[in-house]
């Protein structure tokens, strides 16, 4: 029989047998019979060398095509038997093999969550330079030269006459100088202070500051916005208290404490047995800050607030050492995938 016909015959025969096979053993036998070293298809391929060259390609291609087809059919059917699996034992407990996703840095996650909540309340996200002028970082925010308030924020200075911003509030100075009210902004980012690096303090940390300026903005609006934020971020049902504080750029100024979410205000190690956690500083924007920016402080009023990011992150996730954030040990980072 000419080889080409043999091939057609073999195909017909093999397809039928594969179709009728009902066990993995049978399939394996068929595989050997056709595709094995001494198999029928292999035999055809071996004869190719005797075929005249002008026909060789056509026959060769047909034989190869058959080989490929049988291989794939056999494999498909073998797999289906394997899936049914009375013969091979399938182990469902072997670990899955998907590749793992990376972890966004926990500080970025927390900063994102905080911004998201304020974004939902209509605050636009804005940024400013990390290397700032004394004017935007201090003077425009009512820190007079030679005022003790400057000692509240120990500053790194850089060559060339600027400084590393000690808070993200200079973004407020910049935006107030550029825009007209109504303005409602949130400013997340990195800040720097001249501190000793310990478990609780670092030379760099993150802050989210926010402010709003419009006609008729009151301290009640400030309380409303911050209480809404705390409920959203730390959970419903917490108690809060505002107590007087001092920041040069707000007056009146306040500190917001929330009841400790770990012990519900009963007192525990987290809240140092006080039942309260200090969360953020806030107040009504000092009229002199508005005037510095050329905004009429009789017509417009505003509020401002600011919170660290590391501290709420440490509280919420029970992280005990602030240095972990910049140390970037992947075992730490991956806990917050």
């Amino acid at each position, binding site marked *: 029989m000419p080889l080409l016909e043999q091939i057609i015959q073999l195909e017909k025969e093999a397809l039928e047998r594969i179709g009728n096979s009902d066990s993995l053993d049978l399939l394996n036998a068929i595989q050997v019979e056709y595709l094995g070293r001494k198999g029928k298809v292999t035999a055809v391929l071996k004869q190719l060398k005797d075929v005249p060259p002008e026909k060789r390609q056509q026959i060769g291609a047909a034989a190869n095509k058959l080989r490929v087809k049988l291989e794939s059919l056999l494999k498909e059917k073998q797999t289906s038997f394997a899936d049914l699996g009375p013969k091979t034992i399938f182990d469902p407990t072997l670990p899955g093999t998907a*590749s*793992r*996703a*990376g*972890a966004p840095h926990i*500080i970025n996650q927390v900063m994102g969550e905080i911004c998201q909540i304020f*974004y939902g*309340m*209509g605050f*636009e*996200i*804005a940024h400013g*330079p*990390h*290397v700032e002028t004394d004017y935007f970082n201090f003077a425009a925010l009512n820190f007079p030269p*030679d*005022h*003790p*308030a400057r000692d509240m924020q120990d500053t*790194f*200075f*850089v060559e*060339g006459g*600027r400084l*590393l911003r000690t808070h993200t509030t200079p973004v407020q100075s910049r935006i107030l100088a550029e825009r007209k009210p*109504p*303005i*409602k902004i949130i400013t997340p980012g*990195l800040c720097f202070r*001249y501190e*000793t690096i310990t478990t609780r303090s670092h*030379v*760099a940390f993150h802050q989210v500051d926010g402010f709003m300026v419009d006609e*008729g*903005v*009151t*301290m*009640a*609006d400030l*309380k*409303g916005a*911050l209480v*809404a934020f705390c409920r959203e971020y730390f959970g419903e049902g917490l108690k809060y208290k*505002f*107590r*007087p*504080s*001092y920041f040069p750029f707000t*007056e*009146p*100024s*306040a500190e917001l404490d929330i009841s400790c979410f770990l012990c519900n205000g009963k007192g525990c190690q987290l809240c140092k047995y006080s039942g309260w956690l200090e969360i953020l500083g806030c107040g*009504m924007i000092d009229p002199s800050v508005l005037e510095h920016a050329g905004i009429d402080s009789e017509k417009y*009023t505003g509020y401002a607030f600011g919170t660290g990011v590391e501290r709420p992150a440490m509280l919420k996730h029970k992280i005990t050492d602030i240095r972990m*954030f910049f140390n*970037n*040990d*992947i075992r730490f980072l*991956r806990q917050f*995938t």
Partner: protein
Amino acid sequence: MKLPYSWLVELSGSKWPAEEMGDRLTLCGTACEDIEPTARYFDKIVVGKVLDIKPISGADKIRQATVDIGKEKLNLVCGAPNLEVGQKVAVAVIGARLAGGIEIKKARIRGIESSGMICSESELGISQDHAGILVLDDSCRVGKSLVKALDYDDYIMTFELTPNRGDSMSAIGVARDIAALSSSKISRPKFKIKPSKEKAGKYLKVEIEDKSACPRYAARIIKDIKIAESPWWLKKKLLMCGIRPINNVVDISNFVMLECGQPLHAFDLNRFGSNKVVVRRARKNEMFKTLDEKEHKLSPEVLLITNGKNGVAAAGVMGGFDSEVRPDTTDILLEAAYFNPAVIRRSRKFLNMTSESQARFEKGIDPNGLEYAIDRAAYLFQELCGGSVLSGMVDCYPKKIAPRKVAFRPQRCNDLLGTDYKTSLMKKVFKDLGFTIAGSNAGTNDKKLMVVVPTFRPDIEREVDLIEEIVRIRGYAEIPDQVGNIGPLFTPIHPQDKFKEDIRRLMTGQGFDEIMGHGFDDSRLAALVNPGQPLLKISNPNSVELNVMRNSLIPFALTVMKNNIAQRNLDLCLFEYGKVYFPPDARGNWREEYRLLILVTGQTQQTWRDKSRRYDYYDLTGVLENLSSRFKMPKLEFTGSSIKCFDSELSFEVKCDQKVIGKIGKIDKAIAARFDIKQAVYIAELPIPDLLKLCDNSRLFEALPIYPASSRDLAIVVDETVKAGDIVSTVREAAGKLAEHVSIFDLYQGKQIAKGKKSLAISISYRSSESSLESNQVDERQRLVVGSLKKEFNAEIRDK
């Protein structure tokens, strides 16, 4: 600042328990951080009398004492050098628990039984002093409990005060807030000086050269005093305030300062050097020795108290050594002054020294409060040191500082706070604070009050300061929480923020962990990685490891890698989206820029199914290609370039649209070694602004193909120097528009082929948007491809 609860009760008449007092003060801005019982360690401590002391053989530091504690006589071993027979001492009996966690048990020391302990101040928790035992006043009755004998049952309240509230840095200052909160009045102690006939003015004149730096300087002279230990009541007050008693003169000055906030300084009149006080700026390079025996080279930044010739005190900061009160002092010149807060701040910074006095002057004291302070101190010198107070106070006060009048509109107050307070209520708050309302002739009317603010509150200058007083005393709880004003309705998201979020998603999705830098670098490492590049230097670094701002994300990434390797985290896929900083350019423009860094090192994860392999360069380019396709950027190219931090063989510029947009390569071995890194590290760093410019956010839909694709595989052998990228472009060119995809799916070098050659398998997928392709059309194209490859690269086609 620490103050005993009893003192505040004494001055304010308050009936609030300590806890409540602390809470209320905190809620009015005088933050009480801690309340601690004073006699926490006084349980089972009694007064004893030392009857007898015997040495212990073989021990020269410890002795054995017989101590009478009333009910019994105890045998105690004691190491204190100041133990003497006849002393009254504090004895901790069995079961007492002392500060620092010591529990008293029966013990044998050097074979001698000791059934208790004679205590030092530090063991009782009343000071840090543990040099010797506490010696009690002889009036203490033997056997009495120590807490009763010392009258020591109290609470210490620790206050954390804000820098604007200089007025509350004293017992009277805090008592004023308590009085304001409870609508009562403070009661200051009453006293009477019996002045001698001699006039102080005979001994002293005061001249002020710089009147804005020193608006007021007053002095009194007290003669014939005897320096001695202070009585217990005075020492107790100081101890409770955390201040070490020294002698009666120093203690009285400190006590009066703690009581009313006015710092005082006592000079030895006989060592003063003249009968004239001259207040002036220090001269450049003028030398001055402070009482802690430090020599200072001064500058006009420092305000100096002089005797007309030499400095006797750095005004408001610290007294001088030469005129210091010593054990033989008999006559004193007592100074009470008011200095400009900003001047004291500059002096303090120049001298780099702080003190209790300086802290008060710097925050602002009452210029009209110093008569009380100086008289109170003079009275105590008379009573406790046997001094004779010369009549008259020498007072140089050229321009009296009058109470300020501040206009206040009740309506404005309610508008700002969102409250509904009646004017009468606001007036009451001012009255409780000790403020008065001027009459209509001074400008008060229905809509506006002229509030007269006493000089002890220099922080209140404007209407808004008065509004703060209202809310501070009423409490923030009275302000409703509501959102009445919602502001702008539209909140845009800026493209940079969106891009950052998109990058973060893309990178984490590919298994990369995000790291975060603090912006600082070690100049040595920064210069090593990026030699010759300008660095922004910190003028006042707090360590050499953090003395510049980074100009590349690479050194920090290597530091992070070093930390991880130290923890045996060897396989890392990291990225950072962070800022780098530059010094100002020649035109004075400052620049900082976000960059993206990607790092791979170590091995891929091994599973039971897949073998692990080393991460390499292609893992990075793969990520960059994903990035460029995600943001529809033009095709990326990687061209060889010698970049200092990379291995010269593996150092490339990343180009896109003919522009360099970053660098990629394998970190140079010697540099890696400086970070203790031995394994291969591949890093890419790309400035974000460049990436953002190349992003195409149009995201237009492309119609899906209608006709089937037809694919052909091809294996070729070429010289190993031939670049895959060139092969792919040649294939594309030859295959023409019909070639939809060209990919390289196998690379082989080894035994099967000749040395210096490599085999590549290429898959080409052909498709037409107009019709189904016939196999001869595809074969035709494929022949052209083979022809080009042979021509261009001398490629040899491998049979399959």
